[in-house]
């Protein structure tokens, strides 16, 4: 069973870049913020949810914006995540 909505992930070094990524991503397309993970060693990952296209656009815009103020570690979009992926949070 796969979830109908896509999820997008942006991982940055530091909170500032993560917040900037989140702001740009949420403004860029119709996506919702799901959660943030403090990975450790200064790494912060944010998760977004929405349509595949919207999530792609949001993650691109978020990564671009975060890259201007800090460091983006990695970016990923899962178009149809398995329901159990949500259990990770």
């Amino acid at each position, binding site marked *: 069973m796969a979830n109908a909505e896509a999820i997008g992930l942006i991982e940055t070094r530091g909170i500032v870049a993560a917040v900037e990524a989140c702001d740009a991503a949420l*403004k*860029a*397309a*119709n996506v919702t913020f799901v959660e943030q993970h403090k990975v450790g060693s200064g790494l912060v990952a944010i998760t977004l949810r929405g349509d595949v*296209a919207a999530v*792609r*656009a949001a993650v*691109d815009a978020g*990564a671009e914006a975060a890259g201007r103020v800090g460091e983006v570690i990695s970016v990923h979009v899962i178009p149809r995540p398995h329901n159990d992926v949500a259990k990770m949070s």
Partner: protein
Amino acid sequence: MGILPMSGTVRHGQDARATFMFLARVTGNVVASQKDRSLNGQKLFVVEPLSVKYDEATKKPASLANTGRAIVALDVVGAGEGQLVLVTQGSSARMTEQTKNLPADAVIVGIVDSAEYAGKTFYRAQG
């Protein structure tokens, strides 16, 4: 189109040949999966140019009025939906740091805090 008619409305950015910096309201966003690679990571917004509404009695600008028009503008300042923004068009649109080599015709270059004309503040951002 005159520069500032004594009554009626001024429609900023109405004439396709003339390009002005104009005030607009961000009304929505555009998501395009297939687009030129240079536009990846750019925020595309739908903005509605606003006109200045004149008070018939005093012949002075009274408020900002909707025009019902919609244009797509690139965002370089981190604007969001619902905000009043400053949009620049034409060759100037490609003079920002972020849009130097982009196929951009209209760019949001500012977020408006307040706007005043002839001593009257007709817009003030909330909060």
